[in-house]
Each structure stands twice: as C-alpha cells, then as structure tokens.
C-alpha cells in the first residue's frame, strides 16, 4: 500500500523540492505516526519539522486526512489505508 504526504511550499526544500512524497508499506494499513517515522529514511530533515525528537507531532503543525485534522481523529495513531493522502498545513501561529 502507499499513502501520499502533500507538503506546503515552505517544507518542499526538505523533500528535494517536491510537493508530494509517497510512503509505501508492506502492511495493509498503517498510521500517520508510522508514515512520519518512515520519512526518516529518505527525508530526515522533513521528518524533524513535523515531529520532535521524541516522535510527537509539533504543536503548530496541522495534518489533515480529507477534511479532518488528525488531532480530531486518533492523532498519530490515525489509521491510513492505500491511497490516502495527508495534507500538511502550518497552523495560524507565529506572532
């Protein structure tokens, strides 16, 4: 199975300039947290900007599955299946 992570412009330099990063898994389903952990292999700098060094989603990073913020689902434990797309958006923070 494969899921896609769609990146805002500001994060694309950390993924070789692309908008869409595909993450594949041998399992039938995966989780948001597992997808981010898998980014460590090819895009460690991108992974660091989404989660801290203990694996927690950064406070002002929003991750949407469809129209749902994954914080309103099961957070990093939210289940993903083949073809799902995660949209990363910065929250309105920063002063």
């Amino acid at each position, binding site marked *: 199975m494969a899921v896609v992570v769609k990146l805002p412009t500001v*994060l694309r330099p950390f993924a070789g300039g692309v908008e869409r990063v595909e993450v594949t898994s041998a399992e039938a389903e995966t989780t948001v947290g597992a997808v981010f952990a898998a980014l460590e292999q090819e895009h460690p700098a991108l992974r660091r900007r989404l989660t*801290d*060094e*203990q694996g927690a989603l950064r406070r002002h990073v929003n991750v949407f599955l469809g129209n749902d913020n994954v914080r309103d689902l099961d957070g990093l434990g939210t289940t993903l299946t083949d073809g799902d797309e995660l949209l990363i958006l910065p929250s309105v923070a*920063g002063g």
Partner: protein
Amino acid sequence: MSEAVLLIGTKKGLWIGRSDAERRKWTLDGPQFEMQGIYSVGIDTRGDRPRLFTGGTSEHWGPAVFHSDDLGRTWDEPPQGSIGFPAEADASLERVWQIQPAPADQPGVVYAGAQPSSLWKSTDGGVRFELVSGLWDHPHRKDWGAGFGGQAIHTVLPHPTDPARMSVAMSTGGVYRTSDGGDSWEPANHGIKAHFMPDPDPEFGQCVHKLAGHPAVPERMFAQNHHGVYRSDDGGTIWKSIADGLPSDFGFPIVVHPHEPDTVYVFPLVADANRIPADGKCHVYRSRDAGSTWEALTNGLPEVPAYAPVLRDALCVDQADPAGVYLGTRDGCVYASADAGDTWTEVARHLPDVLTVRAAVL
C-alpha cells in the same frame, strides 16, 4: 583586505551586516531564515576559514542549528540534524540560546546552551552536538524554574586556560560550574540575590541574565542579574555588587572588552517592573575599572527618548583592535562602535526585535 561581519538575529529572521576593517559603514544582507526567531548566532574564527552559526526556532517547524562556511551566503545542517535529545532523555529541544566556540586550544569544540536547560558539546566544529549528561542529570534540574523566556541555559563560559573548567548560567537556576570536564557541576551563586524568592540568598535558583569574562583574568567573571550587577574574582565562589554608579542594577546583557579586562559594558533598564532604558535613552554604560565607576556612552546613539530594551545577547564585542561594540534593540535598531564605545553609528533600523548580535573582523 579584512572584512567585518555582524550577525543580527531577530524575532523574524537573520540579517548580516558587512563592512571593512574600519567598521564605519555597513551594508545589510537579509533576511534569511524568515519566520524563525534567531535566538543564537555564533562566529568561530579558529579554523582555516570562519564558520558562522545560527540557532533558530520556527514556531511551526521547530528548532535547528545551521552552519555556514561562506560567511552566510549558504547554510547547512547535517542530514540527521545538529542537535536533539536522545530518547532516554524524554525531552524535546525547544530553543538553542547560545552557540559558543571553545578557546583556541580546543579546536573543533563548540558548546551550545538550550531550552529546556541543557548543555551540548560538539567536537566536530559545531556540526553535531551531544548532550552533556553530567549537567542534564543534576539533581537540581527538577527545581530549575522557567523565566518568561523559558527555562534555558543561555550562557556558556568556557574557562580560558583549563579545558576541564567551565561556567554556565541559566534562567532560572543561576550559575553552575564544573572542574572535571562536565561530569559534575556545582551551583556558584553565593552573593547573587534572588529578590523574587522568599529566601533571597538561595544556593541556586537565581535569575542570572548573562555572564562574561576575559581570558587574561581567568578567575574573574561579571554577571548581570535579574536586579544586581556583580563581579567574582575567584571563579564564581563569591559574588560582590558592582552596581554602584549605574542608574539601575536591572538589565540583561553584560560584556567585556576584548583587550581590556577591566572594561565592561551593560545596558541598564529601570527595573524588573519597568523594563525600559533607565534614562529613557538608548545609553550603554561602560566601566574601565572592573565596575568601580561607570560612564554613559551616548555619542552617536539616539538623542531622542528611546524605550526599547536590549536583550541578553544583543550586546557584544568583536576581537579587533580598536575594539568594536555592537548593540541591538527590541525596536529593531542596531548600532556599532569601532572605538570601544566612544562613538556609535547606526547599522540598521526598523528590523524586527533584535534577539542577538555577534561580530568579527576576519
């Protein structure tokens, strides 16, 4: 021909001032690292070529340390990142407050002070940093508090001649020192007041805002405290007030002249409860006798009323002769003196809040 570089870290990115060795006229590059608070910058002049550092925090994407070997035209971080807590520390990095190259006889060693209060050491020139576990594991750590800026080690002061010795300062917590290369640490705050605590003379817990020293007088340190300006002549064992003659003992930065160990600079604010310049003017104060007497430095600084504070790392010196002194304000002005503070010129205005400045003549 020699060139001068002035790193200006602000709440919203990095600017770089460039000049010649005279340091009278400056051009400004930037911004870089947009939307990042650049809480620390560093210049390592020890190697074959100078290396610049930034320690920035994006409110969205987290903290990161970058280095540049082409005077700030391009910046790098290693693939795995420069700095981050190991899993067993059960903590995550919030900000890097200080990037401090070690003395010249320790090539490749660079220290970082961070939030939450932690000390980091690099032995590869500041590319990768490792947590100094001796301080992280200190039994006092659970009692170190957070000031408004967050709980952080903001000052790292390596001993100039003994690699096994070092002092750090944190807000809050105060001064800690090691004499065994960082394995063990003891508080070193005797004489520094903590007016905000029921017992104003605690062993630790003071809110020391900045430490400074001079290589020629290794046992002497200066401290700007959260109320109180102090000097220690015995490596931090005893601190004595040197605030007499200043308009106020409150402020954030303190720095020492690069070639005159008795010459020290501060930027007094009215008080804890009124954090604007003590004279309602943007005045640096200088002592040339290690704190016995003070004079206001005004020539070239704004003559109009000025109400912007100066943060703990926004006053610095370079290592040139005559000495350069640099000042950045929270209303985004930067001033430079090429004559040890006697006269000043404006480098920049209308930048975001200036958090830190560092300069060198290369």
